[in-house]
């Protein structure tokens, strides 16, 4: 058993956002493509929490959906525990793998079927994978799972609308654990929740990780939440990972100018009055990103090379100015 559970190699996903064929013929215009994810590579070790952060439209969710297999990648590969998620020859192995991967979604109001009772929701993965046979045993297991996430076994008889947002997210976590998953992809699991409830859910997720040795891919736009949860963090900007580092290191010593800007922009509860890089501009349109490094129009260190060639991820940073300081003379 190798230490690496998830291996994502050069993942790309392009969406066709052109007008319909007839409109193109009549009104003119050409094919337009949106590169939502453009060459993302990372790996996740067993039992660790790897987080992807970034602003809206940076491609975080698209990566998450490709990793669990909800969306086929345009190119690149996702390998989970040695099994490729794209290779047709490994379909058999992939089917066995499915049980071990689960996902928790952002909106607990949309991710639970309102017509199912909670016990049916939580039992669904158990039945789908034939993990337990016999209704009585399934019922016992569902009760056990509900207690595990801090609900009462009798709550299984209720419908999702009888629960608050935080409780619904607990139900979603119970469902994810029902198939004895090892790897859970959490796409903004607490963004729809109030802070006091968010704290409950984050604490619960960490407790469950300690108890079952879970591996998380944690997607969030909230840097403080990511700081709290993740052992390693990848910062995304317009479909690329621009910096990847150990959690502590990233926050103490951000290297890429975008990471610095992002960290500086977070409102500071400690009111330390820290110096910050003033934020300028906004994320450009991903259909027509700037040439070279996509951050160059907003970057204080940008020089000629940045406008010509997209930087590669070298030692955890994709930035010409950081990787090649000699060339970085502001033009």
């Amino acid at each position, binding site marked *: 058993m190798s230490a690496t559970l998830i291996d994502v190699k050069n993942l790309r996903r392009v969406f066709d956002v052109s007008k319909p064929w007839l409109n193109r013929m009549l009104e003119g215009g050409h094919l337009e493509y949106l590169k939502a994810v453009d060459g993302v590579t990372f790996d996740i070790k067993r039992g660790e929490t790897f987080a992807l952060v970034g602003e809206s439209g940076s491609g975080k969710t698209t990566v998450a959906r490709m990793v669990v297999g909800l969306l086929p990648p345009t190119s690149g590969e996702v390998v989970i525990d040695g099994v490729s998620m794209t290779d047709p020859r490994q379909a058999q192995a992939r089917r066995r793998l499915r049980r071990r991967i689960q996902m928790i979604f952002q909106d607990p109001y949309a991710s639970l079927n309102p017509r199912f009772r909670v016990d049916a929701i939580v039992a669904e993965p158990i039945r789908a994978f034939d993990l337990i046979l016999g209704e009585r045993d399934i019922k016992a297991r569902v009760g056990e799972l509900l207690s595990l996430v801090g609900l009462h076994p009798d709550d299984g008889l209720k419908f999702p609308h009888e629960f608050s947002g935080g409780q619904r997210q607990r139900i979603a976590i119970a469902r994810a654990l029902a198939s004895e998953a090892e790897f859970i992809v959490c796409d903004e699991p607490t963004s729809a929740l109030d*802070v006091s409830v968010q704290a409950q859910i984050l604490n619960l997720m960490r407790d469950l990780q300690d108890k079952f040795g879970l591996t998380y891919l944690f997607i969030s736009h909230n840097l403080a939440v990511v700081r709290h949860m993740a052992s390693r963090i990848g910062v995304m900007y317009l479909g690329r990972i621009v910096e990847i580092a150990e959690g502590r290191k990233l926050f103490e010593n951000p290297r890429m100018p975008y990471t610095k800007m992002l960290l500086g922009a977070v409102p500071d*509860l400690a009111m330390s009055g820290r110096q910050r890089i003033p934020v300028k501009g906004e994320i450009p349109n991903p259909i027509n990103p700037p040439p070279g490094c996509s951050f160059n129009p907003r970057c204080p260190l940008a020089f000629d090379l940045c406008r010509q060639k997209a930087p590669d991820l070298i030692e955890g940073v994709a930035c010409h100015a950081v990787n090649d300081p000699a060339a970085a003379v502001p033009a």
Partner: protein
Amino acid sequence: MTQPVLSVRNLEVEFVTRRATLRAINGVSFDIARGEVLGVVGESGAGKSVTGLAVIGLIDPPGRISAGEIELSGTRIDHLPPEQIRRIRGKRIGMIFQDPLTSLNPLYRIGDQIVETIRTHTNLTETAARKRAIDLLAEVGIPAPEKRIDGYPHEFSGGMRQRVVIALAICAEPELIIADEPTTALDVSVQAQIIALIKRLGRDHGTAVMLVTHDMGVIAETCDRVAVMYSGRIAEIGPVQEVVRNPLHPYAKGLMGAIPTLAGEDKRLVQIPGSMPRLSAIPPGCPFNPRCAFVFDRCRVDRPEPIRQGTQAVACHLFDPVKETAA
């Protein structure tokens, strides 16, 4: 002491439904001085937005202000007929809503919307109003305002749209701006720009700002004073440094500990058990008592009134020198 721009006394807002009368705001009092930014924080359902809407007179039936007074620079405005409050709204009180796309009319150029507002509240001519609109757009940081003024809302990004909404809110130079979650729909990097803008406007024009948000970080960055709301009441109010660094009310304490910070160590977050009560089932006494770790008999019977503690005021029996039940 000079007169506060906004003074709210014992405000109560009720919503009458067929089953029961729900009290969304239950005895809220606060002042905002000229040039001051008051933050109002709390979780969903605490009554933050309803407080803001009550001030600007936008509570629609079945909701109504059932008790209390709202004074704007010394004049009562809570019982004015709709026609008069309409003249105050937009002119003396500006409003910024959460979602900039729904607060702009998608069918009109943004310039027309700003000019319309300016001409409603001032007696400027069409040309002068347009010139003023361009100045306003420049002031809120929209590049090339003389070109962008003829754009439609969909041609602007979220952050730029929120700037347009801010320009609309300040176009009649109001005494008070109510900003209801102005940055919640925006990304952090844009959020920082909008916060800086609101701060600067308050400082330059001496406008009082009531900033409603659930984000403590935004409050800490922007506000002078902060009111922490829980279940329709103010649990604690005071200078922002005091309330953030040294919260007194058990709920405020829990709330501060529950927020993950960038500098935070890897320890567990403080967890407040349970969730906020529904409006139809607010417990008697202190509404926080079922979740409070320091609860004692009196909390279940007696409703705590704000007690002054230095510069802060806290509605909690723990801070009452006489702790026993009066009865």
